[in-house]
């Protein structure tokens, strides 16, 4: 389940602009069951496997999100350029990032459906940065996101960046997804009730 904490600390994985959902999880891999515990791990294995090698893990490149044969990543905060998550509506995209161990994304702008899927499914928190941090943060940098203060601290480079408040989706994020939110607000009765 998604975390309700307002501080997320972790290692950054940096990507460029227009990272589309085919790069996040190529279509050939959309067939595994998200319900089956073993098949589910394959989404972690193939998360971001469609990103061209030299653009994976910037600025150096050629760094996969998950190492060969691993299903979980050492990186848990993704820093992306503008229009993150463009392309198809596949919810497997934010889901595979969560399965790989990613907690949050920081990008200046998102494609609408990816942003919504991230929030409504409670997979990862999509933070919006005021500037394109993919030009500043390096893969492996240690970051700390403080949601309340709306800042990201780069502990490696000793820098601080602003993020926007979550705004109208904050309640859904804090509930842990649209179902939890709808139950909290009485829109949907409890399961099996």
């Amino acid at each position, binding site marked *: 389940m998604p975390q309700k904490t307002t501080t997320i600390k972790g290692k950054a994985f940096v990507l460029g602009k227009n990272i589309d959902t085919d790069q996040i999880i190529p*279509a050939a891999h959309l067939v595994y*069951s998200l319900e089956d515990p073993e098949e589910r791990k394959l989404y972690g294995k193939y998360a971001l496997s469609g990103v061209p090698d030299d653009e994976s893990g910037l600025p150096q490149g050629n760094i996969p999100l998950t190492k060969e044969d691993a299903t979980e990543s050492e990186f848990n905060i993704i820093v992306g350029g503008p229009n993150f998550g*463009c392309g*198809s509506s596949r919810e497997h995209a934010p889901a595979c990032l969560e399965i790989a161990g990613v907690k949050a994304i920081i990008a200046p702008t998102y*494609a609408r459906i990816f942003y919504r899927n991230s929030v409504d*499914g409670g997979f990862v928190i999509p933070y919006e940065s005021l500037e394109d941090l993919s030009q500043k943060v390096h893969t492996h940098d240690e970051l700390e996101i403080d949601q309340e203060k709306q800042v990201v601290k780069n502990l490696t480079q000793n820098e601080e960046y602003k993020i926007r408040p979550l705004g109208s989706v904050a309640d859904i994020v804090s509930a842990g997804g649209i179902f939890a939110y709808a139950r909290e607000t009485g829109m949907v009765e409890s399961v099996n009730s």
Partner: protein
Amino acid sequence: MGMTLTEKILAKKSGNSKVSPGESVWVDVDVLMTHDVCGPPAIQIFQREFGENARVWDKEKLVIIPDHYIFTKDKYANRNVDILRAFAADQDLPHYYDVGTDRYKGVCHVALPEEGFTRPGEVLFGTDSHTCTAGAFGQFATGIGNTDAAFIMGTGKLWVKVPETMRFVFEGSKLPPYLMAKDIILKIIGDIGVDGATYRTMEFAGSGIKAFTMEDRMTLTNMAIEAGGKNGVVETDKITREYVKARTDHPFEEFKSDPDAEYHSEHFYNLNDIVPMVAKPHSPDNKATAEELEGTELTRAYIGSCTGGKLSDFRAAAEIIKGKTLKIDTYIVPATTEIAKGLETETIMGETLIDIFKNAGCKIGRASCAACLGGPSDTFGRLNEDEICISTTNRNYPGRMGSKAASVYLASPYTVAASAVTGTITDPRVFIQETVI
């Protein structure tokens, strides 16, 4: 202040007399569509959240159209269809179009209009980003994820942030003979960028739009998502009405943008000023004219998908291909089984489209999404290596058609056909002048 077409639909369906951009509203859903990629996980979330024995909110309003991974030996992909089949049987769903039966349709975005589910004034959600295609019918139609789809399955409702509207006004009375709707939408996406309409509606209007067939309009609205748009929409007219009424008896309500509606921005295009366009690798907004890219070497051509696999798309391609031998492997994939039948009955100077393609050496696939999005490795037409493909599909991000090593150019059926004839990117005006019919 008046409202736009999209705002009017969302107001009506949320029980408000007025809605404004930025406001979040809960709307009643008229149609929920899902397919074989996102249907199974959506069903699993529905059952997890509402209970194993939960019933969908309205079985008349749920449409399930398997189309993405159909003709493959991939066991997981086949399992997805099994899950849909079992769910449709268990829920007694009347609108399930099973593979291997006479009901099988093919690509959902083209099948929905064929089956009368794209009705003006309604709200359609689908677990596929190209659900925005249905906006061609004056409907509010947009793509959603599995969780949102599961939520609708249980409640019949979904929250929507009311989008601002960008208005694209076409001046002119008809499309020039060498131009297709695909050229126009590639030009627009090239102008505003792949995030140029993010969170917004793209409304296509003006005198020019009246000259567009329903299939032309569907090509425009289909690619609204390629500019980040929430939905694309075209006001209804006689053409819309005739198409819809020929497909369904279901009543519908038509809305139009008010003359004093407020738009985010207005963009004007004269149809006569636009020339055949191409999106270069690896982004739909990486625009060039076909003329600028003349001579670019290709290894493959692909004509198909919800964007470029309609009957009018094949007719256009056949006009150029007729009587010629092609220089590169050319794949033909009709979007639906109805279109596949059309290839056998539609003729140009007495020769059927299918014969034109076969005689030119094209490889013909069965109705489905096929290689548009890669898919399992045995998918028809999939790019498995460093192919350089020109395609009528809608997306050319790295790896989209199956291989990160491949390069995909997007273009109209005219341009793809002309390029297939020469083996290099070719402005179709070279052939249109010879063969205008």
